[in-house]
């Protein structure tokens, strides 16, 4: 299999990775860079557990080839918090108990972050629409929506 050297920024850090042509962005993040926050739930772009931000847009990283991320700016769930603390969405999700098993938040939080970045005061329907591709089997979504609303309020 042909390999390619790619350069990209992941959570603010410049990375150079050699990847085979058929490797997905998700596999590269998890197996090459050790960033296991984004999850593999279906490998078909249907569950949203692998969602990461690519140049400011949420993408299913299982459907993006690593080589397509050449030059891109990627943010994973690990990049939401930094030395200054948690993202407001993470704080809100803790406060309202927006997670149960914890497998879907890495993807859902990224979709929600992308929403708030482009629309700081979304309506309930806009939140639902932004998160409809992030499946959750535990919470019934009630507190996930609540956490996004609360984070939006907190600015």
């Amino acid at each position: 299999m042909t390999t390619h050297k790619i350069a990209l920024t992941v959570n603010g850090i410049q990375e150079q990775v050699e990847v085979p042509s058929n490797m997905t962005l998700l596999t590269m993040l998890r197996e090459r860079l050790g960033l296991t926050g984004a999850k593999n739930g279906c490998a078909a772009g249907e569950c949203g557990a692998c969602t990461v931000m690519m140049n400011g847009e949420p993408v299913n990283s299982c459907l993006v080839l690593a080589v397509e991320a050449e030059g891109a700016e990627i943010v994973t769930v690990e990049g939401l918090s930094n030395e200054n603390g948690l993202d407001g969405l993470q704080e809100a999700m803790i406060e309202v108990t927006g997670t149960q098993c914890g497998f879907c938040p890495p993807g859902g939080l990224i979709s929600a972050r992308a929403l708030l970045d482009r629309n700081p005061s979304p309506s309930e329907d806009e939140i639902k629409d932004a998160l409809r591709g992030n499946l959750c089997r535990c919470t019934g979504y009630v507190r996930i929506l609540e956490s996004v609303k609360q984070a939006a309020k907190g600015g």
Partner: protein
Amino acid sequence: MAEKMKSPSVPSPIGESVPRLDALQKVTGEAVFTDDLQFGADLLYGRILRSPHPHARIKRLDASKALALPGVKALVTGDDCKDRFGLYLKDRYTFCKDRVRYVGDPVAGIVATSERLAEQACRLVEVEYEVLEPVLDPVQGAQDGAPLLHPNLKEYIVAPFIFPQHGSNISNYFKLRKGDVEGAWSKCNVIVEGAYRVPHVQHVPIEPHITVAKFDHSGNVTLWASSQSPFAQRDLIAGSLGISPNRVRVISSFVGGGFGSKAGVSMEALAVMMAQKVPGHPVKVRLTREEEFYCSFVRQGLVSNIKIGADEDGTLLAMQTEFYWDAGAYTEYGVNITRAAGYSCTGPYDVPNVWSDSYCVYTNHPVGGPMRGFGMPEIHWGIEQTMDQVAQKLGMDEKEFRLKNCIREGSITPTGSKMHALDLESCILKAAEAIDWGKQEPASAPHKRRGKGIAIMWKAPAMPPNAGSSSIVRFNEDGTVSVGIGGQELGQGSHTVAAQIAAATLGVPMDSIRISYPVDTQYSPYEWQTVASRLTWSMGNAIREAALDARRQILELAAEHWDEQPDDLDLHDGQVISYKSERSEPLKNLVVYGLPKEDDSGWRGGPIIGRGMFMPNYVSALDPETGQGPRAVVHFTPGCQAVDLEVDIETGQITLLRVSSAFDVGKAINPDQVRAQMEGGVVQGASTTLLEHLRLENGVPVNPNFTDYRIASTVDMPLKTIPIIVEVPQDDGPWGARGIGEHSMVPTAPAIANALADAVGLRIHDLPLSAERVFKALRDKEAAT
């Protein structure tokens, strides 16, 4: 087991909505799931060749081309399997020996240096099958003359409370006879009968099944598995390998959703057998999402026939139920679901005359297994719709009819035991009130119709009579506490509740407690399985016992040191205190290093370790002919859901406006988490009601992906969910607590169906209530009038 806390300046965490202990890890991506573990360059991958036929004989298997592929390390087939395994009925081999019984049955396993290569090698294995006639319907499968899936059923090892019918496809027959049903029908003024069907659905945890297995060179096995049952897996896998459970170590990190699918043993055994061929190498096997839909457990299908009669006052007199379970190719776990259905056959009603036959039927369908509710959502689907019709025929309000007939403390259950204290009436009243029951409300548009419905439920933990829990409480040098448990954090919040119980019993602050994790059968104390909504109750009792044991040791030490009586001492706010002498000593000064004797002649005490266990000792056997016995189960959690919905008569689309849930949980150790279970349960229940159906065409699953098998997303949730807690303590629960995890999705389907009937006068007997099905039923109804 109420605890006397004499001077509570530190508030007890019991009954407090303490935040989840694992939330920070889970929102930062730090929480470790099994697939996140790194195994280095030795890691190999396993893939499974599966049967394309629902029923066939394996005539020839040739893997020579697969084995010739560079990078392929090993092959496993049925020839490598020694003994059959199973939880209640040992009816399956890890890999098929001579016969395949469902589409997806494992035929061969390939170990290779990558998943892709293993998959490629699987396609090179040549298998010749002789196709056999399949059994695709449980009612037909139960008849004499149906093709037999397990001709050797009578040789299988079986638990004493399971009754296989030799020479048939019935792997368990549960029979219940109470009172005189035949004589009672003539006294009924109203009798309603009906047949109700429930299709297969899947649990759909967002984390697919995954196991990494490794044999070391001395033959010891380690499994890293996403598992609800590390100890049951250790035991069953050791049994199937013919080695001691002490040589099998199961390590289980956080579980990304289970709902029953990760209970018992399923794909874990495949990984173990593949790893056995390559000692020294960890072998990773993860199910694809497609495999997840039909190669792990599914919820069994059900055909139920229900007949209920009441007198003119609306008092229930008789009930007859017949359950044919579409239990799939292997029923090692499923047999107990059909038993649970039998002893719970009336739903939460006081019925003097009861007749029930519950048949677990082998079919050439995916393997049925435990799923949230363990048979209860399936049987309540028909029971609760029939109850509604009885009330309507009597001209009674559906809520009032349920209040009149529901189970109460002292009622006699179908198995003949006396009901413990509980308050289902309050659940009914509160759930109904929350959606303004009895108030007619307008629909939001001319092409929509609005309706309200109600359904009640009960469910007991279904498990062997002697399912045990244990816990170890260890003090650290600074007075903090490590709590060892064997129960799993599946998302239900068990760690947080475990910490609350330990903190409250030991009189230490919540932040002094750390739960020892992950579960590792080599170090963690025994826990039967994380199933049956039993952890808060059973593991909670074990933790409390362990904490009380540690507490006793500390009080005795301090009493000796101060020359006082332990009864005058207490633990409070991280200190041991004396009410008599008003002395106090921080725990950190004595729980590891002990205390010096006054005369410098030595020391007393030492590291404090408390041990505790809990096992119910009162569950009795039931008479196989009548299902009667002193006590069938440990307890029942009852509850009620009420639904306010709109249906679009032009599309058949149902919109849930309000869903209220009220459950008697005995005592909510953490009310916020109890409410979270109710919210999540409603949506999983609504999803299985409105959207889900694993479609099997001639045994072939045709929709094993999220596009064709939709589960509820944000746009499908009810507009409003209202969770309500009712608390009548359980006599042997910690602080009176009972389980709630599964219960919250049990009555959802019939509550929605009853609301639909209220809205448009349609009674639909099949699930799901998809827009298509509702629309067609509306059209047919219109054509008929």
